[in-house]
């Protein structure tokens, strides 16, 4: 019973830390990472429109002071940008699978 109590206290403690509010600094870091990834996708000439949309949403949320939302949107933008980078790199060889021979 004591073990369960300790475990649940630890669980609640870690769960609460997830809900700790994000700061402007958190947003700036997340946004910068997302922008950097999207820039790399741009240099590979394979950006997605949804990445830009997520970046915009992040910026808009930050402007209203909702940094939780801004960080979440920035993280999503970074994930999308990274996926677009993965796409262009893997397609360098995968395109041949579709080729009519």
């Amino acid at each position, binding site marked *: 019973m004591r073990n369960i109590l300790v475990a649940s206290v630890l669980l609640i403690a870690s769960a609460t830390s997830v809900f700790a509010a994000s700061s402007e600094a958190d947003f700036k870091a997340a946004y910068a990472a997302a922008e950097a990834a999207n820039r790399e996708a741009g240099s590979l000439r394979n950006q997605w*429109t*949804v990445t830009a949309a997520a970046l915009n949403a992040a910026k808009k949320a930050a402007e209203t002071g909702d940094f939780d939302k801004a960080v979440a949107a920035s993280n*999503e933008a970074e*994930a999308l940008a990274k996926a677009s980078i*993965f796409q262009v790199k893997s397609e360098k060889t995968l395109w041949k699978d579709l*080729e009519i021979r």
Partner: protein
Amino acid sequence: MKLRSAIYPLASAALTAALLVFGTVPPTVAADTVDPVADAKAFKKFFTDKFPKLKLEDFVNGPYSMNEDLYRQWEEKEQFPPYEFSLEMGKEMFAKPFQNGKSYADCFPNKGIGIRQNYPYFDEKEGKVVTLELALNRCREANGEPPFSYVKDEMAALTAYMAFTSRGKPFDIKIPNDPRALEAYQSGKEYFYTRRGQLNFSCATCHVQSPGERIRAEVLAPALGILNAMPIYRSEWSGMGTTSRRFTTCNSQIRGVPLSPQDDEYRNVEYYLSYVSNGLPISGPGARP
């Protein structure tokens, strides 16, 4: 958050698939075995096998050759086609001289009449593909005129007129014996089959894998002969659009940020698609749903 967690399994699945492909594919062929002649033959065979009832020239009618009901409606509309206004405007514009007294006729072989089927061509001096749209704007700029937007209006009207003067003439795209030309051709081919955008579609996904089938309410056209009807009056656009318009809007439709019209990738894919449709007649300007 949902999207992020969805991407990771997708990404790892794709990685696994890539590893499987690497395991089974023979060693990569060297670049100098690019064989456009064989490609074009295989391309045509693929589509004629898929649609045995169609004659080769029917492929230039895109979705209309894929669906009887659409074909009947299109035949009726062709008696009074929606591109008529643009075509007339193009004819007038083509004849009108620039401020400096010269005209479009001075920039093109045969005064610009009946030459559309030769575009795009590989410019050996520049080392790049030159499309008709690019040539028209270069002609304007060389004569002190501002360039037109590549996607619609005046550019569409001019290319509509030039296409009209070539109606019935077969595509006659040349690839000179120049490694840069072969590279441009190969890049265009690679672009055509490469998946892009969040929706992960390539041009081939729709136009090679699914011609005649539907994407939402639209019937898909086969890739063979797909540029022969350009420029087109598209009901979806309620107006004219050029090849540039189609390439850029398709990119955004699959959620990829489009490149700029007449960027290298677009010029090269136009080169590839036109070459593999050699022999099929120019039918432009065209109308599409």
